[in-house]
């Protein structure tokens, strides 16, 4: 599978994802930041498909780029925050210093971990390849563990979503006193 065509596109989408995310954290306007984040998420969806996680790639586009980012843009519109604020939208000297130090520390960790082997006892096998995905189908291979080993966690997420719905409605609701 890792042929030249594959690698070129893998690096292309990876670099596009990094470029879009850098553009995302540096935009002043919330709307253009959100659109750059959508671009990052599309690049990640392409990478998921190239890693043979087709179903995850599809729900990345549907759920993240489609639903969650629309909610963000909707709130930006609702609060009328589309304009970049007059003051510079970054924190002061200390925030930038802390962010720079954290970024250097995290990148130093990446460099230190480059070339390290993953610990052996960590490897139970059970990796998959394109043949397994082709036999079981892209959705079936995800659904199999989801509805067997992780059924309890899957049912608990429905409670989480219910709590989130009720919480969002209660917090976002206008009080009676405010309405008058």
């Amino acid at each position, binding site marked *: 599978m890792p042929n030249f065509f594959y*690698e070129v596109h*893998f690096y292309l989408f*990876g670099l596009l*994802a*990094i470029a879009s*995310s*850098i553009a*995302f*954290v540096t935009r002043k306007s919330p709307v253009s930041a959100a659109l750059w*984040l959508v671009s*990052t998420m599309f690049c*990640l969806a392409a*990478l998921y498909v190239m*890693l*043979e*996680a087709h*179903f*995850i790639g599809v729900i*990345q586009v549907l*759920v*993240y780029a489609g639903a*969650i980012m629309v*909610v*963000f843009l909707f*709130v*930006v519109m609702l*609060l009328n*925050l589309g304009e970049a604020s007059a*003051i510079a*939208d970054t*924190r002061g000297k200390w925030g*930038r210093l*802390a*962010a*720079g130090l*954290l*970024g250097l520390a*995290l*990148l130093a*960790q*990446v460099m230190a971990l480059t070339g390290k082997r993953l610990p052996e006892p960590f490897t*139970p*096998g*059970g*990796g*998959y390849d394109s043949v397994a995905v082709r036999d079981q189908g892209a959705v079936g*291979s*995800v659904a*199999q*563990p989801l509805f067997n080993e*992780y059924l309890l966690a899957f049912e608990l*997420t429905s409670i*989480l*979503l219910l709590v*989130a719905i009720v*919480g*969002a409605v209660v*917090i*976002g609701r*206008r009080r009676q006193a405010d309405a008058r």
Partner: protein
Amino acid sequence: MLAESLALSAVLFTIGAIGVLTRRNAIIIFMCVELMLNAVNLTFVALSKVYGMAGQVFVVFVMTVAAAEAAVGLAIIIAIFRHRQTVDLENINLLKG
């Protein structure tokens, strides 16, 4: 492609963390958190190719939690905006010591 995916995920996580620390707009900070969650999802998917399908199941759970977090978080931001008419975190300092 495992090493490249993990490195890309680390870089995206770093960019998201820097965004959380440097921005002041609460909505943009929320979007930076979403970027960090996406970076972790890429790690899950890349490692699921080696260790088995469970990684992709975890990605489904992470997306669910991210959706719930976005709904509640944005409701909180709307509630704060009604009180203070701003989403600038420098002005929201009621609990500051």
